[in-house]
Every structure is written in structure tokens, then in C-alpha cells.
């Protein structure tokens, strides 16, 4: 039966996506960038919308929430998956509201009156059936996908506004966004880039070779030399894994040191992050914030005799508080860290913060 085939096909795809997510998290930098993960998640969600069985918006949201929980559980550190799920849920709510004909502004803003009087009764509203809801939702998801395709280009287009000639720019590790950003600026301006290699994975080496191929003067420094050379740096431009709800960052380890050194020398710290990295998490969740990988990266097995007596740690991420950040550059333009909470309320519905 065609229905059953579609369902098994769908569940197969979901399973394969989950297993890929699980495999990707070895910490050696994802085999795919966050942008690809976001795109794949969104296409998978579109497929679920198209092929799964659901009667009204509420059921659809339940299905998506369930799948979303499974996906985030597969790889908790890959927050773009959860972000995309929340975006799609918001889309569904919007489309539903539009089909019902009610204005959206009042729905979005949590006025004090609404909080006190209605008290979460909006759940039942999603039970109505609309014929065109599916098509509208799929169309909206397609728009989301096109937006995702263009994020890197949007960010790189702003490069010339922020980089002038003869600057010394410092970065850490490898970020595809920052790479595109710098390459775009290098087409018109000459500047010098210092890349901190970010042990133990040394992704900075890849970044440096890729930048130097575009004839950008690049220097690779070990992490220990970050403060030593910071006095000659004009700007620090970094990428990040996640932007947290308070405007802080969850970035690759070593970034907090870089941010402190930049603050000490009053060097501006610019974060290039597309909007799909914005996540409604806060950094106080102790057990889910940090992710560790095998300590043999730090202390290899060749040091055998002391290995058993020593604790070795290899954290992957660092928390950078929002006070150290000067500017966020995203596909919708430049923002201060203090504005992040507004952007978040536009992207996600507060009830979706907990999937």
C-alpha cells in the first residue's frame, strides 16, 4: 500500500538521520558544518509534514515535537537541530493563526492581561482542521530553506563594512562562516590574519591553509601565544557553535581566553553567526553545557605509565559571557549582544523553548 511504503520510507530516513547525528559528534569538528545540519533537519521536517499522517495542526506539532526530541537526544551538543524544530513549530503556529484569520501580533506578545486571564488555553485552538494548512506550511518551510541557503552569503556581504585595509585580524579554530567572511573582504582589501590553532584538534591549520590559498597573509600561532600577540591585533573575528539566550556563546575551547585577552587590550570582538545558531538555552545547565571527548587527544596512550594515575580532560566547548562580545554579525545584519533576546522572541515561540 502506498501509505505504508511512505511511512516506512519516512521512518527509514529519520533513523538514518539520527544515526548520522550520533556519529558526527566525535568532537573532531563535525564532519558537516552546522549549516548543512540545519538544512538537512529542515528538509527532513518538510518531508515529515508532507508524508506523515496528521489531521490538524496540533497533531502535526506533536509529531514534530516527538521527532525533534529524538533528534536532539541523539546529539545534544548539536543545537541547530533543536533550533530548526522550533522554527518549524513557530511556522505551524503562524500558518494556523493566519488560516484562522486572527491577527498575529496579539498572539505573539505576551501581554500581562493575556498571561493572567487565558493561562495556557491556547492549546485547544490547534484542533481545527484546515485544508490548505499543509500546503501553506510546506511553502513556509521552503522559504526557510532558501533563507538557510543564503545565510553565509548574507554574512559575507557585510564584510567590507567591518574590515579596512592593513588590519590585523585574529581568529581561532575553523569556522566556515568566518572563512567566507574574510575571503569576501580579501577580494577588495589587503589585511593580515592570525589564526590560533586551537589544540588538540588543530583546526586552525586547515583554516590557515585555506585562507592563504586566497593570497591572504596568514600566520599560525599556538594557543599559548594568544595573549602575547594580542597587542598587535586590531579586531578579533570568531565563529561559534551556538549563541545562547543571554547573548553569550558556546564556542570552541580557547575562545574565552581569546575574549579575555581582547577585552584587556580593548580590541573589538566580532562574532559571525547565522540566525539558525541562536538557541533558547541558558548557560547554567551544568550537565548539558560541556561536552567532553576522549582524553587521548590530550594525553596519548604512549604516556602509558602515568595515564592511570592522572585525570585528563578534553572539553570541546567554552562559555563566553556576553560582556566580552562587541558585535554579532548575522544574516539579518549587525546586532549588539543585548538585543539577542528580542531576536529570539521573533524566531521562537516561548512554549517551544522546552521541546
Amino acid at each position, binding site marked *: 500500500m502506498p501509505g505504508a511504503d511512505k511511512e516506512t520510507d519516512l521512518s527509514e530516513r529519520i533513523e538514518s538521520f539520527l544515526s548520522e547525528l550520533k556519529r558526527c559528534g566525535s568532537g573532531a569538528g563535525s564532519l558537516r558544518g552546522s549549516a548543512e545540519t540545519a538544512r538537512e533537519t529542515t528538509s527532513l521536517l518538510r518531508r515529515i509534514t508532507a508524508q506523515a499522517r496528521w489531521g490538524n495542526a496540533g497533531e502535526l506539532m506533536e509529531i514534530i515535537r516527538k521527532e525533534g526530541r529524538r533528534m536532539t537526544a541523539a546529539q545534544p551538543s548539536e543545537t541547530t537541530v533543536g533550533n530548526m524544530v522550533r522554527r518549524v513549530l513557530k511556522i505551524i503556529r503562524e500558518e494556523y493563526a493566519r488560516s484562522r484569520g486572527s491577527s498575529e501580533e496579539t498572539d505573539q506578545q505576551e501581554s500581562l492581561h493575556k498571561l493572567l486571564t487565558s493561562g495556557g488555553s491556547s492549546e485547544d485552538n490547534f484542533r481545527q482542521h484546515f485544508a490548505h494548512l499543509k500546503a501553506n506550511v510546506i511553502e513556509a518551510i521552503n522559504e526557510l530553506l532558501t533563507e538557510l541557503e543564503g545565510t553565509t552569503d548574507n554574512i559575507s556581504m557585510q564584510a567590507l563594512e567591518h574590515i579596512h585595509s592593513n588590519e590585523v585580524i585574529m581568529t581561532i579554530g575553523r569556522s566556515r562562516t568566518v572563512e567566507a567572511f574574510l575571503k569576501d573582504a580579501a577580494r577588495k582589501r589587503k589585511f593580515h590574519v592570525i589564526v590560533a*590553532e586551537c589544540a588538540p584538534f588543530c583546526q586552525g591549520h586547515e583554516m590557515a591553509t585555506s585562507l592563504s590559498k586566497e593570497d591572504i597573509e596568514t*600566520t599560525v600561532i599556538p*594557543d599559548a601565544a594568544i595573549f602575547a*600577540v594580542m597587542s598587535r591585533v586590531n579586531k578579533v573575528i570568531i565563529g561559534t557553535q551556538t549563541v545562547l539566550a543571554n547573548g553569550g556563546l558556546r564556542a570552541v*575551547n580557547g575562545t574565552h*581566553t581569546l575574549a579575555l585577552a581582547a577585552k584587556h587590550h580593548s580590541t573589538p570582538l566580532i562574532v559571525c553567526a547565522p540566525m539558525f545558531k541562536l538557541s533558547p538555552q541558558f548557560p547554567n545547565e551544568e550537565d548539558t553545557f560541556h561536552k567532553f571527548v576522549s582524553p587521548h587527544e590530550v*594525553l596519548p596512550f604512549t604516556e602509558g605509565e602515568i595515564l592511570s594515575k592522572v585525570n585528563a580532560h578534553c572539553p570541546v566547548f567554552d562559555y563566553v559571557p556576553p560582556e566580552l562580545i562587541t558585535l554579532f554579525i548575522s544574516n539579518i545584519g549587525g546586532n549588539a549582544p543585548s538585543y539577542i533576546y528580542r531576536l529570539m522572541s521573533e524566531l521562537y515561540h516561548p512554549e517551544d523553548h522546552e521541546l
Partner: protein
Amino acid sequence: MADSVGRQTDSINHATGEDGKSQDILRAKSEGKEMTKEEKQRLRKEKKQHKKNKKDDKGPPEKEKEKTSVPAPSKPVTQSPAHKAAPVPANASPSESSAAAEKPAKSKAELRAERRARQDSERASKQGKKEGGQQSASSKPKATPNELQPVLKRLPEHVQVDDPAALKKLAKKLERQQVPLRSDYGYKVSLFSHLHQYSRKHPPTQQISIPATVIHPSIVRLGLQYSQGIIAGSNARSVALLHAFKQVIQDYSTPPNEELSRDLVNKLSPYISFLSQCRPLSASMGNAIKYIKKEISNISSQCKEEEAKNRLQSCIDKYINEKIILASEAISKYAIEKISDGDVILVYGCSSLVNHILCEAFEKQRKFRVIVVDSRPRLEGREALRRLVKKGIRCTYVLISALSYILPEVSKVFLGAHALLANGYVMSRVGTSQIALVAKAYNVPVLVCCETYKFCERVQTDSFVSNELDDPDDLIVTRNGKTHLENWQTVKSLGLLNLVYDVTPPDFVDLVITDLGMIPCTSVPVVLRVKNVDQ
């Protein structure tokens, strides 16, 4: 020795041109003979007279002339005032003594004459001989001329790599001393074009023929150990240097018609040049060399050779014992007071002194655990880790990029130092300033442990003007079978930077523990002044 005296003779002849005795001496020199003792003494008396006359005629103008004759090659303006401002003892610092000879001969001759005169008069006054009023005048304690005299210091050669004139001078000097010149390797980052960058695969000993007649074999071995990184660490290098010098002194025999005090110092100069070609001298090594040279020149001419050699060897032993071994005992005693039970102590890299302190504290039954922070490419922390674990101390090991993660657990930070500069900055392994910075952000106290013999009169505010560049190939690493930087030489715009030292500003450091006690960072010039007056 004969060379330099000869040149002075020439210059003095140019200046005065009428002294009959100097003609004799000139004749003797031109015949390539070594001058007899009497002739030398006559020469010295002449110069004293000369100096006295000159001093009366033109005091200040002479000083200015000497100042301007200091290397003219343009240096960044910030450097030269800094160097000139630092007071310098009248005894030649190693850089001065090894400086090249292309200066306007007159001022150099005068310098040397002054120096010679002072040394003579010192010795004379020590032996109780009276040679006239002028002696007592010039034998005043060197402290007073020091403080007021503007610095005649020349820039050390190893920060003038971007100046072709200085490079030529160096090449000539090394040729004269028969020391091989080491060539730079690889593309240098433009910010550091004033420093040398050598490759470990091309040691300087490749160009020395066997047998090496000019350089003593133990010095050759020492140089090779330095350049390959076999001996690393400020204390280890100084101790190895002193032991090698002991061997040199042992094998030394005074040639006829020479004084041990003069000749031995001259014999040491090419060795020092060779060692600095292998690896730039550290501040502690510089101080040790100064001490040895002073001791050698203080040997009276009355002393027999054997006795002199024994005296020198015991001086060296005493230096090592006092300044390094006993100092570390004293520092441990002070530092252990600062370690309490339940402490979590963070250390960086491998400092022999800090390791010693921790082992002592563990023996004294203090309960603490240690976090060892390490960094690429040297990974010296593993050595420290081995030593501490062998003692039985509980350790954790992280790389420096995980510092922000581990610091909330830490109660104290202990750091070692390579040198303490006169403006309170701590010069240490690269990464130390980072640790101090992040510790300050988390409000963790930072304690630096340093012996007083590492105190240095230089001043420096950033890690660029004077540093050491290590072999850039060390940064290359192979992960998952891929080596991204393998062919970095072929890519024109790619550079690798492997710094060795950095400077930590004094506001990050809470306390410095020395063998004289626990002092704040800013008291370093006080200690230096006290030491100078003592000597």
C-alpha cells in the same frame, strides 16, 4: 688580547703622536710579537695619563660623542631610550664585550682605557699598593658613576637581524673568532623580522671541522645540547654552562707572556659567541657569565696558575650552590607557607623550581592536588607531570585551551620565571601571561617563584621587541593521517610563528617569591640596586 691592545696603541698614536714609549710598543706590535709585561704596564700608565688629561678637557662632550657613536642603525625609537635609561655597571656586559670592532676607534679605545684603568686601580688598591692620587680617585665604588652615567649600552645583536649592517658586523666578528655563522630558516612573520629563526635540523656544529681548535669540545657539546633542546629550562642551562666552563678552566693553560686574568677572559669570548649562535643566551646565563668574568679578572697576577684555577673552580661551585641550590631551598620554605591543606594548585609547563616546591610540600604532609597545564608545541608539562606523579601527588592534566573550564576549581596558581625585568614584568615561557590573565579574571591568586640571579636590568613592555623564535616546523602535526601544514614553505602567504617567551605585566602577578623573601613584582629594581651595591 694582543689585537685589541694593538689597535688602541694605533689610536693613541693618532691622538697624541709623540710618546716615544708608544713607538716602541708599536714596533713590537708590528713585528707581531707579544708585548712584554713591562711594555704593557707602560702602556697602561700612558693611558691613565691620557685619560686624566682627556677627562679634564672634555667631560660632557666626550660622553655625547660616545652616545652618538652607539650603533646608528635605526631602531624603533622606543627601544633605544629604554636601553639607554637602564643603568649599567661599568663592567662590560657580555653583549658589550662581544661587540664588533668597527666603532670609531677613538671612543672605544677610551672606553677600554677607562675600564682597564679602573680594573688596575681596583687591583692595586686591593693589594695595598699606592700609585698616586689619581688611583684613589678612580677607585671609588663603581656605584656612583653607574647611577648618573647615561647608558653606553649597545643593542644586543640578536634583536638586530633586520639590519644588514649589524649582520655584516656579526659575520665578521664570528669569522675572526672562527665560530660558524648560523643561517636563518624559513619565512619569518613580518612582525618578527628583527629576530633570528633557526631550524633544528641544521645545527651549527655541522660547519665545525674536527678537531675544533678554537672551541673547546665540551662547549661544542653544550651548544649542540642547547640547539637541539636537550637541555632546556633556565636553571638547567645555567648549571650546564657553569659546568662546561669549569671543564674549560681545568683544561686551560696560560700561554707564556700572558696573564691568566686577561687571557682566559678572551678565550671565553668565542665560546660565548658560539653558544649564542646555538641558542640566544638567557638572562640567567648572562648573569652567570658576568660573574665568571669578574672573578677571572680579579685573579691577582701573583697567583700561580694551579691555585688560580682551583680558586675559579671553587668560585663556580659556590655560585651554583648559593644562587641555585640554596636559593631553591629558601624559596621552598617561603612557598610552603603559602600552601594550605585542600588547595588545588595550577602549574604551567615544567619549572624546576615549582616542581621542587611541590615535592617538598608533599613531603611535609600538605594535602593538595595539582593541575598541570600544558601547551603545544613543546608539551613540557608532561615532564612535570611525570615528576609529580612519581612523587605520588594527585594530578590533573589539561591543555591551555581548556583553561577557562578548569580554572573555577583552582585555588592558587604557581608559575616559574625565566627572568624578572627591571620594570616589574615577568618574562617566562609563552602562555604564562595568558594563564595570569585568566586567573585574574577568576580572582585566583598568582604567585611567581624566581631566584634572584635571574633578575635582569632590561626593561620590556611587550613580547615582540626581544624574544626568541623557535623552529617553525614544530607546529606541524599529523592528525587522522592528514598534515595540513606540510608544505607551508611553498605557500607564499603562510607563516608559522613559534614564540618561546612572553612577558606578563605586573598587575597580573600577586606575589614574587625569591630567596630574599616575598616581594611584589615592582620591587625588582630595588633588589638589583642592593645587589649592585653589595658587589
